[in-house]
């Protein structure tokens, strides 16, 4: 179990890091591990890194990825991502041993996890929750859902944690229970002291509805398009009870009650 220091914010710049492991974990899904004493030394669950594109490319913006695994001893940090567009496609072609610029750790992550918490992951939303479970080491239950089996791609080596009970669910029943995260939740939510979720907007919306007023405190890791990643440009706004807030600085983790999903 790692000790976490959630109060500190580190003010790092992008640094060039060696890719020590590159793994295509499934078609369209890739895991990259970087050597980064800076990120590995300071990150806590729910935080993210910005990965920069090569200079000669026409893509200007760095891409945000949750920290998926962290190894303080080896000073390594891993991300797990889905190939969605041009940037992630390029990243999936990175070769082991090459150098990529990354900046981090960034953002305000998850609060401390009480024993017996419920983690809810939709598809690639698994990434920050694995870090959370691994770092805290307390017994907890993970609902890991997706549309179909080919989207439940988290490598077993990363997912097999002694403290983690895993319930898989797919909409087409191709793996685990058949149904959606919302089908499993009602039975589990009432006993949990806290809930931590990451996944598609519709899933988060459903989770929020199910938690309602009487449910446990819930924490969501949100996504929005980013430019600076450090809170300067106001590009990554999400609508909250208190107005627009920045995913990159005020989040990416917000309390469920705070964020709106009406769109």
């Amino acid at each position, binding site marked *: 179990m790692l000790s976490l220091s959630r109060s500190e914010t580190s003010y790092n710049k992008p640094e060039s890091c060696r890719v020590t492991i590159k793994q295509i974990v499934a078609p369209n899904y890739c895991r990259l591990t970087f050597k980064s004493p800076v990120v590995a030394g300071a990150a806590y669950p729910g935080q993210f890194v910005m990965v920069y594109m090569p200079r000669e490319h026409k893509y*200007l913006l760095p891409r945000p990825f949750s920290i998926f695994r962290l190894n303080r001893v080896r000073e390594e940090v891993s991300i797990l991502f889905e190939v969605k567009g041009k940037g992630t496609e390029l990243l999936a072609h990175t070769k082991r041993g090459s150098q990529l610029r990354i900046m981090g750790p960034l953002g305000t992550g998850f609060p401390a996890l009480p024993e017996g918490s419920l983690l809810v992951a939709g598809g690639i939303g698994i990434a920050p929750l694995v870090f959370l479970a691994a770092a805290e080491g307390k017994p907890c239950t993970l609902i890991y859902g997706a549309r179909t089996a080919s989207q439940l791609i988290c490598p077993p080596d990363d997912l097999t944690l002694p403290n983690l009970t895993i319930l898989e669910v797919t909409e087409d029943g191709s793996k685990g229970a058949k149904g959606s995260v919302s089908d499993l939740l009602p039975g589990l939510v009432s006993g949990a002291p806290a809930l931590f979720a990451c996944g598609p907007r519709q899933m988060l919306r459903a989770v929020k509805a199910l938690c309602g007023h009487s449910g446990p405190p819930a924490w969501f890791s949100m996504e929005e*398009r980013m*430019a600076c990643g450090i809170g300067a440009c106001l590009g990554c706004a999400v*609508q909250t009870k208190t107005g627009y807030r920045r995913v990159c600085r005020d989040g990416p983790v917000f309390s469920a009650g705070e964020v709106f999903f009406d769109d």
Partner: protein
Amino acid sequence: MIKPDLTVNLGGIELASPVLAASGPFGYGYEYLKRIDCSALGAIIVKGVSARPWAGNPPPRLAETASGLLNSIGLQNPGLEQFEKEVMPRLKGMAPRLIVNIVGCDIGEYAEVAGRLDGMEGIDGLEVNISCPNLRAGGIAFGTDPAETFNVVSAVRRQTSLPLLVKLSPNVSDITVIARAAEEAGADGLSLINTLSGMLIDIETKKPLLGNTFGGLSGPALLPVALKMVWQTAEAVNIPLLGMGGITSAEDAIQFMMAGARAVALGTAFFYEPEVAEQVAEGLRGYLEKHEIDAIGKLEGIARKGGPADAR
């Protein structure tokens, strides 16, 4: 070897470096200034401030395009009062020079903001944003019409004795007409350019990608457009220019100076490289040394016919 002089005077503001942070991308500065060494920056121009708080536009507010960025932040800002109470104290001692970008829904709001900032300690100049294409009811009207430009700049001018820059919009048929109107109304300098109006569509949802439909294009994509407008404006007015639009390197910055800019500002480049200001300043120094030019001011306008612009 000579040690070139990088200082310039931008409409009354003495700058130790001709490299500035443009209004917006750099926010209010603290997030970046905690990470980078600000000694390369002559000044930072903070994000637009209005009299009352502005909420900004609905997300998504950003979209990436080829060598460019579309944004529709919508001039979100906490308003003058919070700016004075919360932002200014945090900036104390942090920024080299501070220029405040001001916005308004009408002439009254512009004037109100200018008047209140005039008395505030620690502000070295104002930049009037008459050009932001993001805000539906906002600046767009002023910056595309010479008479409106004259009116708003005059109103601001009456409220302040601070050095006054006016930031021009590129979404016009002839930027020199607007530039002259701003000069006549009492501007001490002109900033150009703001973003070009643009949009993208998500072909899967079949809807505009930005929550606000339209946004402003910044980044290297628009550099040649910005450079031409600086060139033309330099020929049309007698006040100094702050050039910007897609600058990411010293070579880019030098082009703007040779076209007629006294200083340059960096915006989108910070997203790719927080330390870009150091790199640009270092590159400027290197160019001057290599070419044995003793002061950055000597580059001003030298690419235009007639050589060195009238040095003021």
